[in-house]
């Protein structure tokens, strides 16, 4: 279908060993949009990405990418679909035994069947787009965290995908690298006319670049809207998240027995002999 959005998630449920991780997720990722999925660690954001990429199968509901139901595809169909998706992993996931150049060339050599001269030009173009053409001869171990992620981004766009998924692209970066990555995500999305999904908990950087935000908590979408809607949101969880308040609907304390009761009881926990 020509007018179907690149990614459409309907009534998605997913459970690990009968423990529900996602319940009733509905999302639309329109063409040309940068969409963020936000929430606390362990709320099911990365699981959602894995379901879109077909690395997991839903318990019920469906994920449609480019009009195809992901979990109904066979291996060949899934691999064909994945050639049209790029994914940026949290720490880049560069192949440590290959140079920067060979990392970006990897998907092209595996799938395109192009001659080596053309692959060279393409790799240099992709590296130029992320500002690292000059670093093509370095090994991943010689790169900073921000550079490694830019190389991984160049690798993710190597096959000109229709969708790029970012798993925590901002985690552990210094402020300058962070805004470089943020700006790159927006710039590449608009220049290539693709769609992007960012899974993140970096609220300030995301609000600058995204078109739409889904907030997740405990495996459900609890709020959604544009950056402006989210900033103005009165939803207590969203408010706590955006303003980074230590206490609120998300408790500071891990569930425990009554404080006084625990302190008053007779100690019956001997010191481990090896400490």
């Amino acid at each position, binding site marked *: 279908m020509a007018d179907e959005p690149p990614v459409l998630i309907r009534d998605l449920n997913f459970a690990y060993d009968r423990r529900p991780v996602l319940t009733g997720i509905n999302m639309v990722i329109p063409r040309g949009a940068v969409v963020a999925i936000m929430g606390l660690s362990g709320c099911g954001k990365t699981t959602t990405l894995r379901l879109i990429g077909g690395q997991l199968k839903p318990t019920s509901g469906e994920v449609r990418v480019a009009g195809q139901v992901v979990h109904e595809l066979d291996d060949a169909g899934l691999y064909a679909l994945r050639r049209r*998706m790029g994914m940026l992993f949290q720490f880049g996931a560069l192949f440590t035994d290959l140079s920067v150049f060979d990392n970006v060339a*990897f998907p092209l050599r595996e*799938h395109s069947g192009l001659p080596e001269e053309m692959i060279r030009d393409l790799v240099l173009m992709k590296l130029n787009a992320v500002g690292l053409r000059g670093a093509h001869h370095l090994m991943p171990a010689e790169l900073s965290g921000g550079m490694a992620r830019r190389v991984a981004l160049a690798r993710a766009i190597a096959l000109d995908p229709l969708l790029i998924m970012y798993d925590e692209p901002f985690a552990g970066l210094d402020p300058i690298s962070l805004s470089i990555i943020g700006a790159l995500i927006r710039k590449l999305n608009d220049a290539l006319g693709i769609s992007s999904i960012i899974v993140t908990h970096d609220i300030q950087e995301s609000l600058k670049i995204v078109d739409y935000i889904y907030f997740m908590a405990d495996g459900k979408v609890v709020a959604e809207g544009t950056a402006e809607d989210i900033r103005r949101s009165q939803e207590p969880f969203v408010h706590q998240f955006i303003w980074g308040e230590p206490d609120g609907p998300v408790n500071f304390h891990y569930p425990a027995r009554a404080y006084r009761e625990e302190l008053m009881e007779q100690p019956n926990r001997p010191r481990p002999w090896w400490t």
Partner: protein
Amino acid sequence: MNPSALDLLRRLGHFVTDRLWRLGFASRFLMMTVLYSGAAFRRLHLTIREIYFTGVLSLIIILVSGLFVGMVLGLQGYDTLQRYGSSEALGVLVALSLVRELGPVVAALLFASRAGSAITAEIGLMKATEQLSAMEMMAVNPIARVIAPRFWAGVVSMPLLAALFSALGIFGGYLVGVQLIGVDAGSFWSQMQAAVDFRQDIMNGVIKSVVFGAIISWIAVFEGYDCEPTAEGVSGATTRTVVTSSLAILAADFMLTAFMFRGE
């Protein structure tokens, strides 16, 4: 039955079903590896690169160990044989012990600890750093691209290493027996040539080392692929590779020997 005995029984049951499940999973994994081996042969450079890492880089330890095992065999063998006045049979003793048993088995044990552990650690770290997931998301099957070349590299390297181990061992036995002790060189070599049968002794040794190579590579790639993606998980998997494959080699050696040499 009292509760603690029941609990013990339950844990024992869990232990057994866990192991069985893992064995089944490992067998399915081996089947997938063989099924997706096309690329490992079509794109031979992938496998050759792994043969370099697993085989060529194991050469030093294999050659040095072979030499010393042979030299010790020379000393010990001479000491025993000369009591019966048959010290010229030293060549036969050294050669048969090496090509039938010590070559395949000791080379396999060394290979498991040198190359098997390296394969597990490498694949485990690739998993921990999401390189395998990244490959999958780039529509490249990691079993075909990463696992199969390493598996076949191990299967190919192992018999070659065992042969070199035996060759160096025989040379070590010659150094000690002939050059140092003074056993007659002519009888050392001629008795060896007369007594070592190509099919019965050498081929059986080669078959053993191919089987050991497949066992080690299978365990090493499976442990790496199946490990917990954490530092602790990778270190545990590496240890398991060495322990499990060493035990598996010894068990398989006994069974193969029982089939091959029935005292005919």
